[in-house]
């Protein structure tokens, strides 16, 4: 069992807090590519228990920022800490990520789940039951033997999501997981994300969809030109965005 404790805000909302790895902090984070400064985040701390939604126009650096936080991209400068510690292998293993386009292994649906469970050291005897539970959770129970890559877009993304949840991550990074899905498929993905968040997984999610940010998020991180322009609770962000860019973004103006 994971060590879950209730934080102050968690006690209010009934959300258990991932104890070990929050807050996530970034200090002096910079990333440059091709002479262009993609990320310039001098000081960022994410401690909210509920989902953090990263919003911003195209090219704002949203996808790069979560890759930096997840450790997939090395920054040119700066450091990221989890609960004040450098992220080690064990801490990384308590994280997972789902990408915009699901990357499914060339195996069956269950094969994809077994892969991650095996990696997390789940004994063979327990794996089958865990896979069954995960399939039910993703509403994929009848499709276990099917090739993962023959699934529809929505099913594939659900598989990617339950696979990410298979290791019971403390932090789940999501990079626009519903951007190419229809409303029905999006709704099912959102339900899975909301359930994971309620169960204590810290969700950090990039989205273009303001409605989605409102539905799922507790906190908004508004990024523009590689900088965090705003970090506000959802309830404050939408009625009163502080920066001009965020105001324009919320009002539906095109930021170019």
């Amino acid at each position, binding site marked *: 069992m994971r060590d879950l404790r209730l934080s102050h805000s968690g006690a209010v909302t009934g959300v258990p807090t991932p104890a070990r790895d929050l807050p996530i902090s970034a200090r002096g984070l910079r990333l440059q590519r091709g002479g262009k400064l993609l990320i310039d985040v001098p000081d960022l701390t994410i401690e909210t228990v509920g989902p953090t939604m990263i919003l911003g126009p195209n090219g704002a650096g949203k996808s790069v920022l979560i890759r930096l936080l997840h450790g*997939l991209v090395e920054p040119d400068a700066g450091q990221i800490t989890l609960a004040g510690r450098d992220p080690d*292998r064990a801490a990384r293993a308590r994280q997972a*990520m789902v990408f915009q386009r699901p*990357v499914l*292994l*060339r195996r069956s649906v269950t094969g994809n789940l077994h892969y991650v469970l095996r990696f997390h050291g789940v004994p063979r005897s327990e794996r089958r039951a865990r896979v069954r539970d995960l399939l039910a959770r993703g509403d994929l129970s009848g499709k276990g033997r099917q*090739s993962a890559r023959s699934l529809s877009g929505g099913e594939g993304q659900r598989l990617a999501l339950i696979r990410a949840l298979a290791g019971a991550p403390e932090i789940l990074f999501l990079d626009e997981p519903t951007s190419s899905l229809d409303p029905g498929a999006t709704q099912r993905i959102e339900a899975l994300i909301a359930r994971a968040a309620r169960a204590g997984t810290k969700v950090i999610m990039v989205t273009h969809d303001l409605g989605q940010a409102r539905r799922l998020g507790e906190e908004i991180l508004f990024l523009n030109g590689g900088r965090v322009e705003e970090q506000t609770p959802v309830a404050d962000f939408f009625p009163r965005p502080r920066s001009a860019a965020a105001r324009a973004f919320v009002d539906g103006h095109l930021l170019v």
Partner: protein
Amino acid sequence: MQDFAASLAHAIGLILSGDAELWAIVLLSLRVSLSAVLIAAVIGMPLGAALAVARFPGRQALIVLLNALMGLPPVVVGLVVYMMLSNAGPLGVLQLLYTPAAMIIAQVVLVMPIIAALSRQVVETLDREYSEQLRSIGVSRLGSVPTLLWDGRFNLLTAVLAGFGRAIAEVGAVIIVGGNINHVTRVMTTTIALETSKGNLALALALGTILIFIAITVNAATSAAGGTARRLFHA
């Protein structure tokens, strides 16, 4: 032309009658080349995959070298392996010269770069798709090699079959290190060369027919494997 027709008829007769000498040669060829390909695959696939995912100085040069080794002239390989295995050579004590083992060694040297270079390409393409996901799961670069090899298995089969095609059709290296000794190291290609020079076209043609049949079978197997992969795994 009449000669050719008569030889062909005789050749077909040899194949259909199950001529013992003919089939002994075919079996030895298959034994040598399949063993060589198996050994080359066991070494070449992980090597190619490691080269695909590892990042180190000189990697590009190594890839160029490996690609160049795909075109190694068989006679040169034969010569080098001969010198290694001859009594005066460093491996002379093993007394392997003019044995099927020597032929297997020569073919491994020829085929391994082909399997490694093609595996490198297959794995690199797959790695481009998988790398972020595998790293997110926590799999290290080198740790991802078994996953990439397994998930690329149908495309890797093409690499192995290409290696087999090279091995079974090769004559220059095996004739040098094997010596083309009757009932010991005589394989299809070396027999064809010898019998043609002696004017025994029927046996040469019969072996040639079988060789072509094997080549066609290997090609058919390659496309069947690709088709299976696409159907089963949408690879």
